[in-house]
């Protein structure tokens, strides 16, 4: 380290010395990296906006509230897709977060270190299974399994609920939600486990010393300490669920409709873009699909914003 000269009368010399430490450079470079993300996303948004001029003029806001989808007559409405995207993502989260967090707690707190490492290693591998293979496995393995074992049990016990009524043909919102849940669980398990592991041991020991059970110390001390990271993993998982394309389109039924039952077929924004973009030959059809991308972007803004507000107010209420 450079030794400080005896006297530093000018601010210029002070400045040079500060720069020598590298701090401003590091600050600038990393700041530029962060800013470039804003630039890239802004550019993407611009492309989505510019590429959807025709339908925005033609339909305006009725695009978001309409339910028709007729490429021949050129009548388009996004509501069924918004519905499908939101419902599948929420149901997937409702399943994946408890299971994922439970597994993360087990792997971080209870399992012997080697077994935990090995299992986590393999679970992270699940994230590498290509989306299209998840789709195939969905059709060949998951849907028959749901048809024979899970759904009959569900309708027998909870069939009075409107969400579990109606005929189950296999491909459905429910099947798509289950596939999504499996796909996003690795993110939750992996990141949550790492964050839990990073919680200092003295936190646990303090809780135990005060007489809590193992579970109480985990749930009431360790998890809140790691909550920020865990929520980060949930956001990652949510984002993946919202944008997942291939696997969803193979098991959701691809029927643009709104339905009160999870067992009915549905459609999602990403799925319809993937299905129709390659063959869309009219200007209007292409631009409508781009506008759907814009709608999904807006949806993500809303959902992320709402989630953050909820967390902020929760944390604020705690204090």
């Amino acid at each position, binding site marked *: 380290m450079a030794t400080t000269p005896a006297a530093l009368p000018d601010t210029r010399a002070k400045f040079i010395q500060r720069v020598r430490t590298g701090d401003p450079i590091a600050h600038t470079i990393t700041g530029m990296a962060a800013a470039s993300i804003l630039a890239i996303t802004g550019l993407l948004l611009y492309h989505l906006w510019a590429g959807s001029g025709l339908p925005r003029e033609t339909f305006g806001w009725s695009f978001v509230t309409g339910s028709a989808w*007729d*490429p021949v*007559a050129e009548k388009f409405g996004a509501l069924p897709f918004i519905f499908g995207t939101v419902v599948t993502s929420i149901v997937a989260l409702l399943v994946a977060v408890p299971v994922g967090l439970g597994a993360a707690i087990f792997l971080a707190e209870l399992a012997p270190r080697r077994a935990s490492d090995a299992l986590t290693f393999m679970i992270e591998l699940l994230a590498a299974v290509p989306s299209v293979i998840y789709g195939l496995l969905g059709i060949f393995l998951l849907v028959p399994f749901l048809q024979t074992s899970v759904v009959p049990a569900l309708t027998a016990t909870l069939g009075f609920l409107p969400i579990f009524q109606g005929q189950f*043909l296999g491909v459905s919102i429910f099947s798509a939600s289950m596939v999504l849940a499996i796909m996003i669980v690795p993110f939750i398990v992996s990141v949550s486990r790492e964050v839990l592991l990073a919680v200092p041991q003295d936190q646990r020991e303090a809780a135990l010393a005060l007489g809590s059970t193992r579970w109480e110390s985990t749930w009431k001390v360790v998890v809140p300490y790691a909550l920020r990271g865990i929520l980060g993993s949930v956001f990652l998982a949510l984002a993946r669920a919202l944008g997942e394309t291939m696997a969803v389109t*193979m098991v959701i039924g*691809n029927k643009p409709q709104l339905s009160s039952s999870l067992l009915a077929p549905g459609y999602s924004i990403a799925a319809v873009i993937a299905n129709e973009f*390659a*063959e*869309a*030959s009219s200007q209007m059809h292409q631009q409508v699909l781009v506008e759907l991308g814009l709608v999904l972007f807006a949806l993500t803004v809303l959902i992320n914003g709402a989630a953050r507000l909820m967390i902020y107010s929760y944390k604020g209420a705690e204090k």
Partner: protein
Amino acid sequence: MTKTIRNFAAGAAMLALAACGSSEQAPQRLTGIGATFPEPIYTKWFSEYQKLHNEIQINYQGQGSGAGIRQVTDGTVDFGASDQPMTDEQIAAFKTARSSGILHFPTVLGAVVPTYNLAGISAELNFTPAALAGIFLGKIKKWNDPALVSANPDVKLPSAEIVVIHRSDGSGTSFVLTDYLSKVSPEWAAGPGRGAAISWPVGLGGKGNPGVVGLVKQTPNSIGYTEMIFAIQNSMPAGRMQNAAGKFIKATPESATEAAASVPMTADFRVSITNASGDGAYPISSFTWLLIPDKIQDAAKRTVIVDFLKWMLGPGQSMAPALQFAALPAPVLEKELQAINNIQ
């Protein structure tokens, strides 16, 4: 520190290795994109052609007719391929974008068949045009509907409800079927109409031909439609369609070629052959086309394309039946050979 340097060196070496191309004569590379239906025969052709002309690599990717039309208009590929002819609008857009015209060259014929899943019935069911339209419109709801029973007196059709399966993705296969239905059913023409992606009155959507076949296989009492090849390869039953001459015809390469032969060909080759009038013609047949710009700047590429087209119309055609594609009828072949001269 040394570790970093070592890693750097390894990385640089890998980059150099990956960047070096073939050191001998640079191959002539062309790219094409478009319909997925003819992809098996196109890849076979380009592979065989490369064996004859070692330095010519024609890379074809099947990503959909729409992508083919779009990218050939953008100029990001050398040629396109489509299961449906370009509309006048699209041809005009091409002229504006590339300041040249675009030519259609039919390559092979395909057929779309209704396929179904009925327990205990592996026979080929007969479908009249009205019956098929009624099923896909959702008007005919049960398998033992009089329209189906009268066409199949020897088969015991169940009283189960029909589950309709259609394509969720835009596709040439859907275009051919809806083109046919629009011709034979005024109600269909006024309603869903013809298109690669339409608003289906009833049914579930499967992605791709295998998606439809998969759903049909898994869903009892279902009916879907798919390319003849998929039905054959997956051992699915294929229904017989009643053609304009009143006969129930099975889809085969021969009956498809007969459909093509019985329809007069236009000069620009953009013709639909569904509901053809020939006696043995299969009514849901269609051409598939290569889309070639009529002005090609690069002289070397132009020579390759012209030569390939001539080869395709000659030895290439004989490779089609082995892959269950139907070859073009003779009069069409001759017209095309002449049309090649329009490429400048």
